[in-house]
């Protein structure tokens, strides 16, 4: 498969938290030919199951990557302009001058841009420092009359930045968080076509991670997997985060394997052993508290699920210029496939925390 094309298609698609339809259909089209069963749950998460070779009932490995993206939502129409709020953790510092797409009331995409009004029009409290999203305006270039017809309060707004290739195998796009992880899962499913596996592998594209890990919670409850791996992005090194070098992973250093309270130690060791056996570049990411990923919700579903996090190093997270190395996406996909294929029918009986 061509990971780059797939990744670009995923990142181009809208799909804000709670509004994942457009991206889900792209994922469904990619995963359906690679899996045996496909379903959408009540909240909209996509489940694609690839049956294992073991005797039913087979143990289940859940691979969860959230498909929702951060963005904006229209709260008010003021003449030609829209006022908005954040959906998910928007970084207000990058918003002025940002190109966006307003997903209009009549299923029509309106090109817009985010405007910071001049200081004399801002509330006194916001005249210094970063102007909060709620004081910014979105301009769709239309007359007030046309705006009134074509935009409604509640319409969602995506970043418009299109995916672009940079030097050295780097790719940048909006929504790399977390469409790059979805792409890694696709790479895994593609590899599993040629790798016999005993377990059922259930690829899950979860909804509403950015607003509280909601799709992961309901999917893990319903699927009740024996093991789960959340795939997400982590902070890559770069010129803006030198002071946080202890918290970042180098781009092109392979998947980062999470370690901390959300992570089952035995599962971590098994994944790490797989990476070592493959001589696949990888790093360890310390997650001292909340992992900030779907794993946090999955771990406490039902009676508790051994959970792991595999992350892709990504620069400029939660900006429209999120950047990573394509190689890391392929490496993560390969690691997941090899780990899944290596699971024996009695793996659970040997899994221990210590």
């Amino acid at each position: 498969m061509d990971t780059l094309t797939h990744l670009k298609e995923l990142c181009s698609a809208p799909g804000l938290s709670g509004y994942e339809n457009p991206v889900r259909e792209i994922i469904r089209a990619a995963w359906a030919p690679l899996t045996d069963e496909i379903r959408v749950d009540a909240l909209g998460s996509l489940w694609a199951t690839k049956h294992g070779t073991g005797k039913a009932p087979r143990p289940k490995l859940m691979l969860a990557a959230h498909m929702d993206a951060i963005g904006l939502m229209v709260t008010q129409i003021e003449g030609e302009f829209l006022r908005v709020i954040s959906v998910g953790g928007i970084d207000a510092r990058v918003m002025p001058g940002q190109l966006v797409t307003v997903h209009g009331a009549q299923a029509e995409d309106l090109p817009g841009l985010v405007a910071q009004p001049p200081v004399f029009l801002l509330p006194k409290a916001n005249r210094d420092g970063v102007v909060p999203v709620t004081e910014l305006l979105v301009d769709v270039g239309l007359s007030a009359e046309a705006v009134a017809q074509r935009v409604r309060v509640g319409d969602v707004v995506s970043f418009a930045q299109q995916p672009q290739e940079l030097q050295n195998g780097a790719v940048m796009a909006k929504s790399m968080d977390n469409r790059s992880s979805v792409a890694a899962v696709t790479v895994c499913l593609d590899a599993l076509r040629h790798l016999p596996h005993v377990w059922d592998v259930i690829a899950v594209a979860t909804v509403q991670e950015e607003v509280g890990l909601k799709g992961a919670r309901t999917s893990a409850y319903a699927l009740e997997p024996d093991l789960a791996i959340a795939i997400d992005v982590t902070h890559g090194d770069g010129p803006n985060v030198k002071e946080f070098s202890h918290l970042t992973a180098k781009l092109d250093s392979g998947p980062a394997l999470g370690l901390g309270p959300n992570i089952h130690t035995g599962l971590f060791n098994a994944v790490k052993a797989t990476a070592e056996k493959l001589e696949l570049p990888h790093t360890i990411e310390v997650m001292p508290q909340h992992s900030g990923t779907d794993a946090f919700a999955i771990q406490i579903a039902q009676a508790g699920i051994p959970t792991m996090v595999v992350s892709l190093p990504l620069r400029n997270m939660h900006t429209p210029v999120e950047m990573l190395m394509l190689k890391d996406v392929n490496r993560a996909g390969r690691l997941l496939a090899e780990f899944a294929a290596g699971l024996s029918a009695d793996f659970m009986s040997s899994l221990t925390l210590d």
Partner: protein
Amino acid sequence: MATQPKPKPARKKTLARQAANAPTKPADTSVGDLTLLRELSNAVAVSGDEGAIRKIVLDAIQDHADEVKVDALGNVLAVKKARNAGGRDRVLVAAHMDEVGLMITDIESDGALRFEIVGGIADTVLLGKTVLVGAKRLLGLIGAAPVHLLSDDRRGSVIKSNQMRIELGVTSGEAAKKLVKIGDRATFATEFAEVGPSLRGKALDDRIGCATLIELLRGPAYAFELHAAFTVQEEVGLRGARVAGHAADPACAFVLDCTPAYDFPHADAQRENTQYNSRLGLGPAIYVADRATISDERLVRYLKQTAESAGIPYQYRQPGGGGTDAGAIHLARGGVPSVSVSVPGRYLHTPAALVRADDWRNSIHLMRRALENWTSKVLKR
């Protein structure tokens, strides 16, 4: 538009018209070459490095001018002779070719690029944007530390441009040096787009003036000798205009630019925005005075009468800050009666400016009509 100081807060309410943009009658669309404007807007020509625009301009005007030259600073100076041999008056029309942008000042060991701002760009609009670097238009991005890692107070403080870096994807200074050199210019990577009745582009200030001036040259000859100056370095101090004004030694000058439209609602709904400067949709903005120039009142009156007799919508740009090439031209030699006409534009000096196509078309109509009817009587006291 050259950088202007921040407007002072309004002290009192006035009875200015409600935020307008009332639909005017559609402009005659026989003018306004969008293909040309697109090409001009997408080209990269930061002040002092205007070669890319110069080439487009030279190509576009070569068949429509009697003399064309490039002066010592890089201005394109074109002369279109009068239609009658007797027409000896010279009229200068100027528009600046340069745009605000960035200049690469250092290549760091990790391959990140440091830069300085050329002209006026607010630090607030740089973060999280893509840029084109150097003559090869290499794609780069200006990244930001993820909010996840920042304390609340840092999430709320504006990053200074000297702390920002351009990332290219390379991971070493050696690799970056193969692609970029110190002194390369960069601009926002925004592509020109038609958006409903609006036009959006990175450098409409002042490629829209250049496009208007090209259209004025393309028409038939006038009763006077038209001197068209496509100037350099407006954004760093009207420097091209100064020598262009000297060279043309005209009877009067018209300057075509793009002026900010701050026609946004006030955050306090009880308060009116009295400092909009100009408004989209109301037609070309005629300057009475800005920080650099008091327009020649005869030319202001002439433009007003021209617009009214032709039924072309117009507005007066609010007197105040800012400046155009007229600031240099009106002081050339012994003085040149001058006026500026701008297309109102929102978000100038940001990744994407926005204008109404009809305002542009109407500014072409106004200027074409004004030149067609111009005689030295306009300047009679």
